């Protein structure tokens, strides 16, 4: 999680002065972090977009208070909490829905089908995890945060994060092995 750089500072200053274009620039810097994290935690794009919208509106309201804080860490924490809140309000839907959420880039139908299946496999394997295991795995293994950073975002100890991450890795491995063995 990088500290606030000069462009971020400019964007924050511009936003504080009421410049929405400056805030849009800040949003562009962090939109992948927020949207993809929410997508991995929730499993479908519509919910992930709702969470992203909420996170950025909260960021806009709280920007003045984040002067000395790590913005990435704050965004991860708010994204995880908002995703958990949404998941409790809206129970998980059919994992097959996820396949059509992210259109594939290429025009080749075979390639598109393969990419859709790969995304479905990832989504289904994340679904076998508990809420906390899923958050730990997404932040540590997919988003690439250190164990210490994950612990800070989730508000738990490093030992807890290590335990959750290792259990999650084993569960995902078992799921993928079962899935591909059935396919072959």
């Amino acid at each position, binding site marked *: 999680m990088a500290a606030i750089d000069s462009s971020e500072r400019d964007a924050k200053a511009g936003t504080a002065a009421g410049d929405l274009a400056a805030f849009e620039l800040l949003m562009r810097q962090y*939109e992948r972090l927020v*949207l*993809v994290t929410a997508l991995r935690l929730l499993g479908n794009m519509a919910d992930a977009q709702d969470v992203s919208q909420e996170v950025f509106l909260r960021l806009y309201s709280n920007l003045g208070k984040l002067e000395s804080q790590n913005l990435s860490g704050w965004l991860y924490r708010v994204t995880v909490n908002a995703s958990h809140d949404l998941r409790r309000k809206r129970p998980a839907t059919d994992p097959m829905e996820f396949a059509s959420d992210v259109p594939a880039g290429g025009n080749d139908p075979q390639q598109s089908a393969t990419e859709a299946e790969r995304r479905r496999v990832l989504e289904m394997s994340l679904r076998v995890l508990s809420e906390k295991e899923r958050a730990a795995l997404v932040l540590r*293994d997919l988003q690439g945060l250190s164990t210490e950073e994950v612990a800070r975002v989730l508000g738990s100890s490093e030992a807890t994060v290590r335990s959750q*991450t290792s259990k999650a*890795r084993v569960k995902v491995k078992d799921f993928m092995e079962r899935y591909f063995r059935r396919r072959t």
Partner: protein
Amino acid sequence: MNCSNWEERIALYAGGDLQAQETADVDRHLADCEGCRDFAAGLKESLQLMRSIHEEPVAEAHFAAVRARVMGELEGSRLPWWRSAWAYGFSAAALALFLILTLVPRRRVERPIRAEAVREQGIPAIRRDVAPAPAPLHRVHPVHAVRHQRPLPILPVSVPPDPGPPAVVKMLTDDPDVVIYWITDNSGE
């Protein structure tokens, strides 16, 4: 794999989460245990697959949609006062009230309550034992009294005659302990 006590450590090892000493311990164990080697290889493979899928680009349209929603919300909340819906409603209501007050003819006629007026009109229906009318609620200023002596302007609507102030009628009965009071208008009804 029978080495269940190695499972957590190998899972951490596969993700690169162990310190140097712990990594060396796991390496030694893997060199001796084929089951754990397969287990570790499976973990690394699934992690690699997960990461590769995760790294696939997400369509720009999804980010643009979020951006548009956020900016729309922020712009909506920062509209100047003259572009807010409530301002239009308030302005329309104020204009309607102004038009009603200025264009619709006045229907209200002042109804002065004056002790003098009551005395001038006289109340023939009231007999000797009728109590005087209650004092007016407002003190009459002499200037106002003069003003009200002028004829009232002719209004476009018919105005019911001013009944004047109410009178309190006192009726004595044979029983000195029983006295009946009632309030009536000047017509004695």
